[in-house]
């Protein structure tokens, strides 16, 4: 029993209305985002329609503050429609502000939509979001159909039907794997929209006219990859606006253009961010790297190798520390984040014409190309992207120094060696091969008995209490159904030290 039955009732009623309004508003605002991306005269009728209908719903439900916001925006848009104003400058900012105000109200709850009072965002805890994903109904239907088919094939197999059943089963297995994987895939569209908003905000705060052009928003990646791509991409966009687009656009269109694109390729998605700014001078980069002690003067580097130095830890190209990118986070963090996603990043730049970053990302974090190794009776998986090469022991000299372990002399490069059985504390025979792996702190040669082959494996998380075993980044179910552990080269180096 409540002391204030009336208040409670009103609250409940408001919350119910909120659910209704939220569904409507979220769809509407998503449409607005899309229209604002283009921000062309063609967008105006659509924008007008959305704000007009939201105004109507808000008014009907008694959400006065939300209604007022929609009304103001609608009035402005009407002026544009009637040719009295243009969709640019302050007016365009107004539309952006209206969408973010409405979003804040929706997040804050029903009372905010009525009164317009927003809680202090700094002190407000982000609402806990359950780990849920939205999935196309069509994909779920496909999955259910396939499972129905599986039941049929099971009956065939248990009935003793031989080859035909097996053929159907193997086809079905592949289909199921593909469909199951697709459940986790999302288009990069929402990520690209975030970047479009960021570019607008950055343009406003720096005073540099800059636009973002996007393409390939429909390309799909694993949800986890998309989420973890957001931070590095934010950083790269900031860098591009801050350092890429010049203040003085001599001989160029006054508005700087960033281009963000995605395209699907077999097994991966290529995401590119380019700008038409001043480009990067490889000589300047090289000088700076020498000055910072990253390389020394005797290093002979190609232009491409010079450009790659921007990814070196401790390197920052900014001449002056600015509010935008001078935050102590450099491109090395971006590179690390992309590599953590088992992708890789490359830079191309033409002095005076612009810079392009190309990221190749795996479709999913749950499948990895692995090198299968044997040490004693154990088998381990080493993710291929980290593997440089495999060499036979005895083909290269091994140098021993008084104050450390053995070093492999690989064409003049000294690489520390690490015995897998030693680090793991497992019995094994004499190693015959060394797999050279790029670890965080440089290359390391891991000694193993045998390389069994290369295969794609599905990565499974290690659960408690196995999760304590930091030496492994996960487990894989191998071809024979047994579990193989996936080695974490960085942790191996740490454990061996």
């Amino acid at each position, binding site marked *: 029993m409540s002391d204030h039955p009336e208040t409670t009732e009103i609250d409940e009623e408001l919350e119910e209305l909120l659910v209704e309004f939220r569904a409507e508003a979220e769809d509407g605002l998503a449409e607005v985002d899309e229209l604002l991306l283009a921000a062309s005269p063609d967008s105006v009728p659509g924008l007008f329609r959305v704000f007009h209908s939201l105004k109507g719903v808000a008014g009907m439900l008694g959400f006065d503050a939300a209604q007022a916001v929609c009304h103001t925006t609608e009035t402005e848009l009407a002026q544009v429609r009637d040719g009295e104003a243009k969709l640019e400058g302050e007016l365009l900012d107004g539309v952006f502000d209206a969408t973010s105000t409405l979003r804040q109200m929706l997040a804050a709850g029903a009372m905010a939509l009525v009164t317009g009072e927003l809680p202090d965002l700094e002190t407000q805890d982000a609402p806990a979001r359950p780990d849920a994903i939205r999935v196309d109904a069509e994909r779920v239907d496909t999955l259910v159909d396939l499972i129905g088919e599986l039941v049929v094939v099971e009956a065939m197999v248990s009935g003793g039907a031989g080859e035909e059943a097996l053929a159907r089963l193997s086809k079905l297995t592949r289909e199921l794997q593909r469909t199951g994987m697709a459940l986790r895939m999302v288009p990069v569209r929402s990520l690209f929209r975030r970047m479009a908003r960021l570019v607008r905000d950055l343009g406003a705060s720096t005073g540099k006219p800059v636009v973002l052009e996007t393409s390939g928003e429909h390309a799909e990646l694993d949800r986890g990859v998309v989420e973890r791509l957001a931070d590095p991409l934010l950083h790269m966009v900031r860098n591009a606006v801050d350092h890429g687009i010049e203040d003085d656009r001599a001989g160029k269109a006054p508005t700087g253009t960033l281009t963000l694109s995605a395209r699907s390729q077999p097994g991966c998605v290529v995401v590119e961010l380019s700008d038409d700014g001043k480009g990067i001078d490889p000589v300047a980069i090289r000088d700076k790297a020498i000055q910072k002690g990253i390389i020394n003067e005797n290093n002979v580097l190609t232009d491409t190798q010079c450009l790659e130095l921007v990814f070196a830890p401790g390197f920052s190209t900014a001449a002056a520390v600015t509010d935008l990118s001078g935050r102590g986070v450099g491109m090395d963090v971006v590179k690390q984040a992309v590599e953590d996603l088992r992708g890789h990043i490359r830079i191309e730049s033409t002095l005076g014409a612009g810079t392009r970053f190309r990221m190749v990302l795996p479709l999913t974090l749950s499948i990895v190309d692995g090198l299968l190794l044997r040490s004693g009776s*154990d*088998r381990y998986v080493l993710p291929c992207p980290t593997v440089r090469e495999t060499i036979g022991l005895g083909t290269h000299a091994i140098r021993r120094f008084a104050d450390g372990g053995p070093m492999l002399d690989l064409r003049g490069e000294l690489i520390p060696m690490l015995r897998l059985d030693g680090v*793991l*504390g*497992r019995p094994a025979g004499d190693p015959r091969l060394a797999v050279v792996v790029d670890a965080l702190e440089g290359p390391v040669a891991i000694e193993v008995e045998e390389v069994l082959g290369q295969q794609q494996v*599905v990565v*499974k*998380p*290690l*659960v*408690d*209490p*196995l999760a*304590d*075993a930091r*030496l*492994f980044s996960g*487990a894989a*179910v191998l071809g024979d*159904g*047994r*579990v*193989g*552990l996936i080695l974490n080269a960085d942790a191996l180096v740490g*454990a061996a030290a």
Partner: protein
Amino acid sequence: MQSLESRYLRFELAGQDWAVDIAQVLEIVPPLPVTPVPRSGEIVVGAFNLRGRVLPLLDPRRALGLEAGDPQDGVFVVLTREGSTYAVLVDCVHDVVCLPEESLSPPPDLPGGAPEVLDKVGRDEERLLFIVDLGRLLAA
């Protein structure tokens, strides 16, 4: 009325009868190939593949101060507790017994202290049953 909480799965470990709350038991599977996980806890036998899930196999003998068992010579009891799923290695499982609340008592004072996983002692007719809380294996 019988409540689920009063039913226990009776299993054998090192010639002795033990029991575990059936509400924690997900399934019982014959031994599967186990991959040792180096540098994991002392009670961890390794990891195995249960229809695509990689689960840890624990050996409660090691927590009870007994000699380690052979993973291919026993039965895996898959348990879930507080969101984690894992399996324990036992010699064999017998049956499900119902124990009324009044037949349960706290573990006896043993010289040197009772094993950490021992939760209660139950009396089923003339038989003594050691009821273990295998979730405590994870904390061990």
